C-alpha cells in the first residue's frame, strides 16, 4: 500500500510532458493524460485489495482510536527547518494516509476524471489549446489525488492550493471571453477567502500540537492535550476553508459563474475534484469537529442546511441548463455538510460519491446537448429525446437519481442523510431537509422535462446524437448512478455494506426508517409527476403562483442578491480601504520612508561638495589645520 503515491504521480508526470512534448505527439499528448489517470484507476484497485487484505499487524497499519478504522500511514522526511533536535526546529514529513475515506475518494476521483477525459477527447476536438487542456486536466486530477492521500496538513494545503489554481486555469480556459476571465478570477478570489481560514487553522493546530501530522492532531484531541477552545477554533477555521472550496453560503457565488469553463471541466469540478475537497476536509478532520461537545458540527449543519435550501430555490427558477445543475450541486453539497453536521459521516461520503457519479453524468449530458444544439437556455431546447436518445436516457437516470427516485444511487444516500438528520438534529432540521429533497426532485424534473420532453423545436432539428467517445463515458457513469446504491446493503457473505466499510466510531449496517423512506419516495415521485404536468402536459399553470409570490420570486431570481451585496462591499468597503492603503503607500512608505533617505543623501552631498573649491590654498589650509588639530589631539591624549 505504501506505493499508493504512484496514483497522483502518474498524472503529475503527465502534465509537464504534455506541455513540453505535446505538439510532437499524436493527439497532442491527450492519450498520455488518459493513460496516466487510467493507470491511477488501476492502482486504486490494488490499493483497495491490499487494504482489504491488511490488518493491524501489517507494516504501517493500525486501528485508529478515533475512527475505529484500519488506517495505514507511510511518511518520509521532507525537510528540516532549523537544526535537528534544537528548540524551535521543525521537522516536516510528507506521507500518505490510507483509510476507507481515502480509498473511496481515490476511486471516485480516478474514475470520474478518466470518464471526463475520454469525453473531452470528442468535446474539445479542434480546440486550439487541446494539449494544454489535457495537461491542466492531469494536474488537476493529480492535485486532488494528493489532497485525499495527504497525511499531514502542510501537504494537504499545498494540494489544496494546486486544486485552486487548476480550477482557475480551467474555468478561464477560453480566456478570450471576458466572462470566462471574470469567472476564473471570481472562483480563485472567493475560495481564497476561505483558504486564509484554512491556513490559520493549520497553523493554530501546529502551534498547539507541534506537528503538521493529522494523526498527531487527532491523538492530541482524543487524549485532551489539545484544549476544547483550540479544537473548536481550529475546526471552525478549517471549516471556513471548506466553505470556500465547497461553495457554501456565503461563498457559493463563484460556482454558478464557473460554468463559463468548458462543460467537461464543470463535470470534473462538480463531481470529482474541486468542490468535494471541502466536504472531504471536514470528513478527514472530523475528530476535531466531533471532539468535546461537537459544537462546530452545529455550525456545519446550519451552514449546510441554509446552503441546501437556498440553492435549491434558485435552481428552481434558473433558466440556464448549466446554472440549474450548478445550483443543484451547491444544494447537494449543502446536504453533505448538513449530514456531516448531524454525525452522518457515512451518509455524507456515500452521498458525495452517489452525487459525484450522478452530477458528472448530468454535466456530461448537458455538454452533449450544448455540443449539438449550441444553446444553453432551457427555453431553446425541448423534445431532444427524439434526436439524442442515449443522452436523454442517461441524463434522465442522473436526474432521477439526484431527485431521489428509489433504486437509483441518489435515493439511498439521500435517505441515509435523512435518517442521520432526524436522529441527531431537531424537528426544524428534518422538515427543512425534506423540503429541500422535494425541491431537489422538482428542479431535476423541471430540467429533464424542459430539455428532453415536449415538442422538438425547429431550430434543433439538425441536432444529433454525440459520438461514441462522449456517449460511452456517460453510459458507464449512468450504470453507476443506477446501481451504486447497491453497495449500501448488507449483502450475504463478508461484505456488510458501505456503513461497515467507512464509518466514524463504529460500523453500522444499512438502516432504513420506514416513515422517512416512504415519505421521501412519495415526495420525490409526486414532485416528478407535478413537474411532468407543468412542463410537458401544461395541465398545471404556474401563472397564479407566480403572480401571488411576485416579490419573493424576484428575490430568488436575483439569487438573493448575493452578487449585489458582494459588489457593494467591494465598491464601498474594499476599494475605499484600498484607496486609503494606496495613499498611505505613496505618501508615507514611498515618499517619506523610501525617497526620504535618498533625498537627504542628495541634499547633504550638495552641501558637502562645496569644499571642493579647486583652489590649492584652501586644500593646503585644510591639511594644515587638520594636522594641527591631530597634533593637539595626540598631545592632549599623551599628556
Amino acid at each position: 500500500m505504501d506505493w499508493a503515491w504512484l496514483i497522483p504521480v502518474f498524472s503529475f508526470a503527465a502534465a509537464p510532458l504534455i506541455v513540453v512534448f505535446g505538439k510532437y505527439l499524436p493527439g497532442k499528448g491527450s492519450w498520455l493524460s488518459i493513460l496516466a489517470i487510467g493507470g491511477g484507476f488501476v492502482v486504486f484497485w490494488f490499493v483497495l485489495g491490499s487494504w482489504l487484505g491488511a490488518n493491524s499487524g501489517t507494516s504501517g497499519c493500525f486501528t485508529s482510536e478515533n475512527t475505529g478504522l484500519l488506517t495505514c500511514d507511510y511518511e518520509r522526511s521532507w525537510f528540516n527547518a532549523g537544526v535537528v533536535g534544537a528548540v524551535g526546529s521543525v521537522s516536516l514529513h510528507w506521507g500518505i494516509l490510507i483509510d476507507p475515506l481515502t480509498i473511496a475518494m481515490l476511486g471516485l476521483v480516478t474514475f470520474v476524471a478518466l470518464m471526463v477525459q475520454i469525453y473531452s477527447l470528442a468535446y474539445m476536438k479542434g480546440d486550439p489549446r487541446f494539449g494544454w487542456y489535457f495537461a491542466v486536466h492531469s494536474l488537476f486530477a493529480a492535485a486532488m489525488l494528493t489532497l485525499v492521500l495527504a497525511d499531514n496538513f502542510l501537504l494537504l494545503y499545498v494540494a489544496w492550493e494546486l486544486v485552486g489554481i487548476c480550477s482557475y486555469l480551467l474555468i478561464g480556459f477560453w480566456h478570450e471571453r471576458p466572462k470566462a476571465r471574470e469567472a476564473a478570477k471570481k472562483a480563485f478570489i472567493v475560495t481564497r477567502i476561505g483558504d486564509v481560514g484554512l491556513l490559520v487553522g493549520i497553523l493554530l493546530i501546529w502551534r498547539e500540537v507541534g506537528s503538521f501530522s493529522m494523526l498527531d492532531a487527532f491523538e492530541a484531541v482524543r487524549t485532551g492535550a489539545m484544549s476544547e477552545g483550540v479544537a473548536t477554533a481550529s475546526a471552525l477555521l478549517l471549516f471556513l476553508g471548506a466553505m470556500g472550496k465547497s461553495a457554501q453560503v456565503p461563498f457559493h457565488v463563484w460556482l454558478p459563474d464557473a460554468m463559463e469553463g468548458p462543460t467537461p471541466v464543470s463535470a470534473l469540478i462538480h463531481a470529482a475534484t474541486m468542490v468535494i475537497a471541502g466536504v472531504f476536509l471536514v470528513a478527514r478532520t472530523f475528530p476535531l469537529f466531533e471532539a468535546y461537545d461537537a459544537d462546530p458540527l452545529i455550525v456545519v449543519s446550519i451552514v449546510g442546511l441554509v446552503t441546501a435550501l437556498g440553492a435549491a430555490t434558485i435552481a428552481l427558477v434558473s433558466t440556464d441548463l448549466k446554472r440549474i445543475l450548478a445550483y443543484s450541486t451547491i444544494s447537494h453539497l449543502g446536504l453533505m455538510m448538513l449530514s456531516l453536521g448531524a454525525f452522518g459521516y457515512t451518509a455524507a461520503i456515500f452521498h458525495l460519491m452517489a452525487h459525484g457519479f450522478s452530477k458528472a453524468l448530468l454535466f456530461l449530458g448537458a455538454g452533449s446537448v450544448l455540443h449539438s444544439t449550441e444553446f444553453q437556455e432551457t427555453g431553446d431546447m425541448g423534445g431532444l429525446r427524439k434526436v439524442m436518445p442515449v443522452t436523454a436516457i442517461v441524463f434522465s437516470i442522473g436526474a432521477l437519481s439526484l431527485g431521489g427516485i428509489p433504486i437509483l444511487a441518489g435515493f439511498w444516500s439521500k435517505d441515509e442523510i435523512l435518517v442521520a438528520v432526524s436522529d441527531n438534529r431537531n424537528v426544524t432540521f428534518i422538515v427543512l431537509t425534506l423540503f429541500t429533497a422535494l425541491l431537489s426532485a422538482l428542479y431535476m424534473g423541471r430540467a429533464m422535462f424542459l430539455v428532453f420532453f415536449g415538442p422538438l423545436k425547429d431550430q434543433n432539428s439538425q441536432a444529433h446524437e454525440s459520438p461514441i467517445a462522449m456517449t460511452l463515458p456517460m453510459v458507464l457513469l449512468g450504470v453507476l448512478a443506477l446501481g451504486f446504491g447497491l453497495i449500501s446493503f448488507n449483502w450475504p457473505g463478508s461484505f456488510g455494506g458501505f456503513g461497515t466499510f467507512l464509518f466514524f466510531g463504529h460500523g453500522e449496517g444499512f438502516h432504513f426508517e420506514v416513515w422517512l423512506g416512504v415519505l421521501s419516495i412519495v415526495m420525490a415521485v409526486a414532485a416528478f409527476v407535478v413537474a411532468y404536468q407543468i412542463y410537458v402536459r401544461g395541465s398545471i399553470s404556474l401563472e397564479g403562483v407566480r403572480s401571488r409570490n411576485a416579490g419573493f420570486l424576484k428575490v430568488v431570481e436575483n439569487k438573493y442578491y448575493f452578487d449585489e451585496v458582494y459588489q457593494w462591499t467591494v465598491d464601498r468597503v474594499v476599494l475605499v480601504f484600498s484607496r486609503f492603503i494606496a495613499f498611505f503607500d505613496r505618501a508615507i512608505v514611498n515618499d517619506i520612508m523610501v525617497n526620504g533617505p535618498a533625498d537627504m543623501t542628495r541634499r547633504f552631498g550638495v552641501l558637502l561638495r562645496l569644499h571642493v573649491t579647486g583652489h590649492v590654498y584652501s586644500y593646503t589650509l585644510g591639511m594644515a589645520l587638520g594636522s594641527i588639530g591631530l597634533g593637539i589631539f595626540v598631545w592632549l591624549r599623551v599628556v
Partner: protein
Amino acid sequence: MVDLVYFQLLSAALFVIGLYGVMARRSAVLIVMSIELMLNAVNINLIAAASHLDGTGKFANFDGQLIAIFIITVAAAEVGLALAIILRMFRNRSTVNVDEINMMRW
C-alpha cells in the same frame, strides 16, 4: 654644543615659511620651492634630534640621518615630477597660476 631647541626653532620657522609659501603663492613653481623648504625643515629637525639623542653631541645612531637622506632622494624625484607636471600645465593652459587651474572642482 648648541642646544637642541635652537635647531627645532630654526626647523619650525623654516616649516612655517614653507607653509606660508604653499598657501600664499600663486605660481606653481614657487609652491614647489616652498614644499622643498618644508621638507628641508623636517630634515634639519631629524638630524638635530638624532645628534642629541644621548645628550653628548655624538652620533648615537644613524636613524635620523638615514631618513633625511631618504627624504632628499624622494624630494629630488618629487621635484622632477612636479616640474614635469607644471611644464605640461603650461603647455596646455599657458599659465602656471594655480588660481586659474581649477578644473577639478564641483
